[in-house]
C-alpha cells in the first residue's frame, strides 16, 4: 500500500506525574483495515487511544490524520475528524435512555432550538436495526436496565452512527457471551468492509486473529512492533506481549530487564 495511512502517530509520549505511560510510540492505521492493539495490562493501550480521542493531552509527538498533521485537544476535535471511540467502561449515562445516550453531546434540535425527540428516536431505531440489535425491548428505557451485551451494542451503535472514519473499540467483547461476541466481531468485519478503519483493543488473541489485518504490540509504554496477521502466529504475539522484541531502542535485549519508568 503506497497511500498514506488514515491515522499516523509518530513518537508520542505521555506522562502522568512521574509515571511514563507512553514513550515514543509509533502507530498507524490504514484505510479499511482492522488494526489490533494488544499488550499486557498497563502497557498503555488505553492511554494511547485516549490521546487519540482527545481525552488526555499528550506531552510530545505528532498525530496526522488523512496525511495532514492535526492537533487533538478535546473529544470534539476527535469527533470532527471522524474518530469515534467505544470505551471499555462504555461511557454511557445509566439514567438516560438509549436514544438520549446515542445523541449525547450532539442532540438534534428543531427550529425553536428544542430537542427534536421524534427524529432522534426514529434514527436510533434505524441505526440499531441496521446493526441487527434487536434484543432491546424499547429504545426509550434507561440504559441501566439493559444487559451487558445490549449496552455494548448501544455503545458501538453510538460510535458508528456518525460519519465516522475511524472507530476505536476498547475491549468490546470482554464482558460478552459467545453469541454476542460473535455478533460484535461480525460487526467489526462489516465496518472494515464499508471502508472504515477500526482499531480493536483486546486480550483475546483468538478474536484478534479472526478479524484483524495487522497487529500492533505495546509493552511498558513502548511499541514493540507491527505484525501482519497472515505472517505471524499467536506464539509470536504472545512472546512480543510478555517479553518484548527490540525494535528501535538500542541496548534492550530480547529478554530485557523490566524498564524502570
Amino acid at each position: 500500500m503506497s497511500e498514506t495511512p488514515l491515522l499516523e502517530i509518530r513518537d508520542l509520549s505521555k506522562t502522568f506525574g512521574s509515571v511514563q505511560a507512553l514513550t515514543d510510540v509509533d502507530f498507524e492505521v490504514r484505510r479499511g483495515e482492522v488494526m489490533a492493539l494488544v499488550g499486557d495490562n498497563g502497557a498503555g493501550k488505553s492511554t494511547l487511544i485516549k490521546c487519540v480521542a482527545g481525552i488526555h493531552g499528550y506531552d510530545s509527538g505528532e498525530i496526522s490524520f488523512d496525511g495532514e498533521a492535526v492537533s487533538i485537544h478535546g473529544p470534539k476535535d476527535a469527533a470532527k475528524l471522524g474518530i469515534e471511540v467505544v470505551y471499555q467502561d462504555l461511557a454511557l449515562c445509566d439514567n438516560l435512555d438509549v436514544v438520549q445516550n446515542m445523541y449525547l453531546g450532539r442532540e438534534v434540535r428543531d427550529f425553536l432550538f428544542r430537542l427534536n425527540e421524534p427524529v432522534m428516536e426514529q434514527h436510533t431505531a434505524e441505526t440499531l436495526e441496521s446493526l441487527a440489535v434487536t434484543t432491546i425491548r424499547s429504545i426509550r428505557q434507561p440504559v441501566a436496565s439493559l444487559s451487558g451485551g445490549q449496552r455494548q451494542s448501544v455503545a458501538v451503535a453510538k460510535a458508528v452512527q456518525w460519519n465516522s472514519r475511524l472507530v476505536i473499540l476498547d475491549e468490546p467483547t470482554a464482558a460478552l457471551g459467545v453469541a454476542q461476541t460473535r455478533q460484535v466481531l461480525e460487526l467489526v468485519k462489516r465496518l472494515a468492509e464499508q471502508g472504515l478503519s477500526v482499531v480493536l483493543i483486546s486480550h483475546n488473541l483468538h478474536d484478534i486473529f479472526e478479524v484483524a489485518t495487522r497487529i500492533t504490540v505495546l509493552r511498558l509504554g513502548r511499541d514493540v512492533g507491527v505484525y501482519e496477521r497472515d505472517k505471524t502466529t499467536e506464539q509470536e504475539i504472545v512472546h512480543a506481549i510478555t517479553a518484548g522484541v527490540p525494535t528501535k531502542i538500542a541496548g534492550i535485549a530480547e529478554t530485557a530487564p523490566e524498564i524502570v519508568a
Partner: protein
Amino acid sequence: MSTEADVVAPGIGLPEGDETEQQTLWQRAVGNVKSGNLGVLPVVIGEVLIVTYFSFTATNFFTAGNFVNVILQMAGVTMIAFGVVFVLLIAEIDLSIGYLSGIAALTAATLQLPDGRNYPGWLCILLALGVVAIIGAAQGTVVAKVGVPSFVVTLAGLLIWQGVILRELQVRGVIQIEEDWINKTATYYFSATVSWIIAALVTGLYALVALSGLFGQQRAGLKVRPLPALAKLVGVAVAAFGVVAICTHATKPAACPEGTPLAEVCTQPLGLPLAAVLMLVFLVGLTFLAKRTTFGRHVYAVGGNAEAARRAGINVARVRILVFMISGIMAGVGGLILAARLQSVNLNVGGGTLLLDSISAAVIGGVSLFGGRGEVRGALFGSLIIATIANGLNIGGYKTGTIYIVTGAILLGAVTLDTVARRLQERSGR
C-alpha cells in the same frame, strides 16, 4: 453538528418482528412500579392521606380560604426548591440558598427605600436577582473549576451570606417594603373572570403542546400513543379549573358597606393568587429547560455519569456553573416572594428551616440525591406536602416541635423510598 444518522453497517440479517409490542397503560404503570420507577405516585398518595387526616382532625383546614393560604405559604419554598432540583440532578448540594434568598430580599428592600435609592420595583427585583445570580455562578465556579466540594463551598456561603445580612441589618433591624411590584408577588389576587381565563389558557396551551408532540411523533414515523397524552390533558384541565374554582370561592374579611346590620360579618371574594401563577410559570419554564433543551439533557448526563458526559464533548464545568447560577436565581425569586408576604425584611430573613425545607421539598418530590434522576415538578409536589403538614399541624394547634418531627419523618421516608427504588432499578437492570 450533524443531523444525519448515517447508517454505516446496513443489514446483518434483520430478524423480522415487532419489538415494540403493544402495551396497555396499566401494564406500563405496573412495569414502572416493579422496576422502581415510582414517579409522583407516592407523593400524590401521601398528599391525599395528609389532606384526609387533617380534614377530620383540624377544624377550618378543609376550606377554600385555607387552600389559598397553603398556596401562599408554599410559594417561596417551591421557588427555592426548583433551583435545588437542578443542583441535585448534577449530584451536588447548595447549602447557601437559604441566605442567598435573604440576600436577594435584602438587596431589593434596600434599593426600594424611599429615603434611599428609591429605585422602581421592577429594577429592584432585577438587580436583586442579578446579585444572587452572580453569587451562585461564583460559588459554582469554585466548585467546577477549582474542584472544592460543593458542600464546603456552599457551607462557607451559608456563613458568609448570613454574616452579610446580620451586618447590614444590625442597625436598622427591619426594612419595610412599600414597593408594589415586590409586594404584589405575594399579595395580588386575580379577579374571578381573569382566574377562569387563566385556567382556560393553561388547558388550551397544554392541549396545543401535547397535540404538536403527537404530530411530531407521527411525522417521524413513530407509533403515536394518544391515550396517555389525553389522560394527562384531562389531569391538567381538572387541576387548573379545580384550583381556580377553589380560589374563587375563597373569601377574606372586609369592611362592610354602609347600612349593613352590625351582627353581619362581611367578606370579599379572593381569586387566584399571583403567586400560584408565578409558580406555574417557573414550573413550565424550568421543566422546558430540563426536558426540551440540550442544556437540560446535559444536566441529566452530568448527574448520571460525568465522565461519559465529558467524553461526549459536553462542557461539564459550564453545566455545573450554570446550575449553581440557576440555584442562586431561584433562591432569589423565592426570597423576594417570602419578603413580599411579610412586606418587610428582618434579621431572620433566609434563616430558620428555609434551607432544609427547600432541600426536603425536592427530595420528597422524588429528586434523587445521587444525581441524574428527578423532575422539576417534584419540587412543587414536595413543597406542597411540607406546606400542607405545617399548615394542618398549625391549625390543629400543634407546637413547632411537632411540625419538625413530622416533616423529618416524612423526609426520612421519602429518601428511604428513593434508595429502595434505586436498588430495585439496579436489580431489574442487573
